[in-house]
């Protein structure tokens, strides 16, 4: 009759469901970036950092660098500047990705040195396509053993990535013959970190504009940290429940970090710093210059608030955006 006895028998249940942090008012989830990284990102962990060009959790990556995490496996569809920085800081030993470039602005210098010349150390790399990564998150979030997709037929990728495998459909194909399809395995990060526009204190997270694969990356993970531009009152979130892409039951930590996506952008909050993307190709090409950049902007700042202040008000004015409000919809109330 004891609940704990019952619980103990269901050994296959993911850890996450019982261990999500919470307090009566949910405020236990709200913490500083420092606390969240210390609590949820451990040496040797598999860390998913998602945000497809939009809402890249850069500030979280910087805090991981400041805390000197080692031997991480980073899972990220578009491994871009923040990943190059984490690699350069010595945090990353393995990368799982479908695009390793500096957006359309050039190269990632450190990543290329690692992969091309093992300089200063090798980097293990698992290469996928975008939809392959999407499907790995879908499988991970849905607790599926694999996810099928109509990609990879004829590609050389399966020859360098043995996790791209094939399954025969138990239904006949269009020509009535057996049909084969590639599948990818689930990814289940130890922790997923995403950036979002806003959440309530319990972690109900609202994102608009490009929503990418963030919700699935959160559900796929054992722990989830949501970094937000602002925490809003419960009433704001509840006025538009369809906007909540990540419900509180999937979130372990809520971190308030305005402008934490820079040089990426937050739709409706600040624009993308395209100049920095272009600059990064040059900075990262020169290991000395890269080290100096990290020293000044990451190690040299105590937290993201200092980084933001250091950039200065004029700089941020240049990324300011105007207003384009959504028209309200009526959810209705019973009379």
């Amino acid at each position, binding site marked *: *009759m004891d*609940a704990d006895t*019952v619980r103990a*028998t*269901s050994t296959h249940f993911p850890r996450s469901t019982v261990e999500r942090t919470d307090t009566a008012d949910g405020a236990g989830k709200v913490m500083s970036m420092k606390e969240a990284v210390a609590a949820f990102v451990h040496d040797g962990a598999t860390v998913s950092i998602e945000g497809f060009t939009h809402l890249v959790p850069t500030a979280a990556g910087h805090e991981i660098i400041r805390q000197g995490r080692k031997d991480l496996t980073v899972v990220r569809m578009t491994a871009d500047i923040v990943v190059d920085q984490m690699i350069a800081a010595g945090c990353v030993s393995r990368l799982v990705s479908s695009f390793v470039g500096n957006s359309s602005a050039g190269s990632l210098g450190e990543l290329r040195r690692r992969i091309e010349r093992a300089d200063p150390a090798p980097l293990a790399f698992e290469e996928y396509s975008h939809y392959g990564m999407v499907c790995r998150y879908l499988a991970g979030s*849905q*607790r599926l053993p694999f996810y099928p997709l109509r990609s990879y037929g004829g590609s050389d990728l399966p020859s360098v990535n043995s996790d791209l495998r094939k399954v025969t459909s138990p239904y006949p194909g269009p020509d009535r013959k057996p049909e084969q399809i590639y599948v990818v395995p689930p990814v289940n990060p130890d922790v997923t970190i995403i950036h979002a526009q806003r959440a309530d204190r319990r972690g109900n997270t609202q994102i608009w504009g490009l929503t990418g694969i963030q919700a699935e990356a959160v*559900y796929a993970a054992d722990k989830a940290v949501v970094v937000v531009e602002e925490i809003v009152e419960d009433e704001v979130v509840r006025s538009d429940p369809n906007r*909540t892409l990540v419900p*509180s039951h999937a979130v372990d930590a809520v971190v308030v970090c305005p402008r934490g996506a820079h040089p990426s952008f937050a739709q409706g909050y600040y624009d993308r710093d395209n100049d920095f993307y272009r600059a990064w190709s040059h900075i990262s090409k020169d290991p000395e210059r890269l080290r100096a950049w990290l020293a000044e902007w990451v190690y040299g700042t105590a937290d993201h608030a200092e980084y933001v202040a250091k950039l200065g008000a004029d700089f941020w004015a240049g990324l300011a955006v105007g207003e384009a409000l959504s028209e309200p919809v009526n959810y209705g109330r019973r009379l």
Partner: protein
Amino acid sequence: MTTTAPGTVTSSELLSVVASRELAARRTVFAGIGLPTLATELARLTVAPRIEVVYESGVCGAHPSHLPETIADAVIVSGAEAVLSMPALFGCVLQGGHIDVGFLGAAQIDRWGNLNTSVIGDWTSPTVRLPGSGGAIEVMANSREVFVVMRRHNPRSFTGTLDFCTTPGPDRALAEGIRPLGAGVTRVITELGILARSGVGEELRLVAVQPGVTVNQVREATGWDLRVADTVETVPPPSEAELRLLREDVDPDRVYLR
């Protein structure tokens, strides 16, 4: 609407109160409509203030202005914390393993907690065609544990052999080589008492009787040779406080209370 005389406890009230107590320390519950709604809302006011109700329709963290009449009632949508798509609800929340307790009902249940909601009689030409699974198969397969509330406790409903197994517990799944996530049915709450099991390989056994009910009465009402716990407790009757909350705060309009 009927008014219940003070002191008289109806079947709905009894079942709701007993079920609500079982929700202590649970975080997420997948609730159908009716008795599970009453039990969950009462638990929120008593033993599980932070419990999150997840509805099959996609609503998480509902804050309804009125007691919902369906699992898709407009009042559970307005003011909710999240409304998810059906693939997200079934795929990520349920199959992803985020539900502590799922509530299910059934026309028939067997000693392992397997359920029939498809047909009475033969599937191809049934005596009675029932609604079918809905999401019950998924609730059973993916919740940490499942509570069943049965309005009728008799040998036709509590049967030695299901006419059809719509919703299998983990024992049947394992026999087919499919690994279940949770424990299956861990509590069956009826007017006569509480049956329980803790997981795979274990039959339901009688662990408590309602006041005034004998172990023998429950055995006779059960269509298989019911196992009985070494110590059978007597269910504490609904307290004044529980009944008041249920009648005045949870369901003042008697939507489900009878």
